[in-house]
């Protein structure tokens, strides 16, 4: 029997890269940190706040996100949106994700069990 710790580590590894993909998809509609966190969690991508907030800044520095300050509401919020470069990168990543899915399906199909 595989221990819970080992299983949890593998599941974390599996999920790690998908946070970036999910964020880029979700931010096709501009949003600020906390609202994005809520949306991702609601769609089955639970992510820690202390991971997501630094990640958004990093994606912005890499040019995958653009940002804009909104000062109209009660507190100033930074809204992120997926940039054109981010959209192109996202296409590649989604293709790759689909390729992984296809290969895995074929492997499961062909493998005796």
């Amino acid at each position, binding site marked *: 029997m595989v221990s819970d710790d080992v299983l949890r580590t593998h599941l974390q590894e599996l999920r790690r890269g998908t946070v970036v993909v999910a964020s880029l998809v979700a931010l096709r509609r501009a949003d*600020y940190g906390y609202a994005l966190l809520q949306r991702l969690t609601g769609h089955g991508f639970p992510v820690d*706040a202390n991971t997501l907030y*630094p990640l958004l800044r990093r994606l912005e520095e890499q040019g995958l996100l653009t940002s804009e300050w909104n000062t109209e509401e009660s*507190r100033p919020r930074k809204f992120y949106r997926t940039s054109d470069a981010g959209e192109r990168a996202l296409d590649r990543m989604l293709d790759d994700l689909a390729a992984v899915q296809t290969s895995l399906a074929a492997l499961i199909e062909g493998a005796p069990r």
Partner: protein
Amino acid sequence: MTTSLTDRYLTATLRSVPAPRREEIATELRASIADMIDGRTADGHDAATAEREVLNELGDPAQLAARYADRRLQLIGPAYYLAWQRLLIVLLSTIPAIVGVVVGVVTATTSDNPGNAIGAAVSTAFNVAVQIAFWVTAVFAVMERLGTQLNLPEWNVDQLPDEPVERVISLTDACSAIVFLVLTIAFLPWQQFQSVISSDGGRLPILDPALWTSWIPVFLAVLVASIGLEIAKYRARRWTWSLVAVNAALNLAFAVPAIWLLLNDRLLNPDFVARFAWLRDGGLDIVARISVTAIILISIWDVIDSVIKARRAAR
């Protein structure tokens, strides 16, 4: 007004974030924290508890800051670790010993006290080892932070060790045996000049000084030869039958004269014996008998042990 927990958290986080981005991160993080608190108070928590929970969830400010600055939380990472480890092993296994021996020899020529020379050698070797470990690690830690490329050649099969022979004699075993032999050798001059027992005429040697011109050189030769045996054994990686024979011969060469001297009351310095009443009054006999028994048992056990290990290795 007292500073809020959030203010203190922001200060602690921003301290180690690069200055140009500090202001912006502060504003954004403050808004995010406020949003998270609002989210919790909407669920019915009171504001103070919600603030504590949110900050606990965000975790160690230093870790959060490292994530913002994209800084790795490690002294020496996987890219440098093996190079660091190999360099450290090469340097530590050679330089301290060389410097120690040189310092020891130089001190021995200028000082008439062998104890001083050994002490100087050991302490210098230790200091050199600590300095090497510190500076090598410091340089690698700086390279890790600057992202310096090492440009080492790619590993390939040509770098495999020659023979994958299983090593039975470990380096630790060989080193500890050699250290023990060196200490035994060092004991001989030490007891002559630096013995803890003093008399009116100065330090009182434990062993009979007359032996320096007869048997002590033999013991020294046997001990030095034993160091050679340890090195040969390490290089051979295992006990071989010729090593067993040499080991038995060395055991005999040490045990026979030692036992003979003990039984004839010629090993210990007569002045040394005279200073202790219980040694004079029959105690010497008991000491001699216990020592002889110990020497015989240890020698026999050592030879049997080497035979067993040689048989096991020959299989």
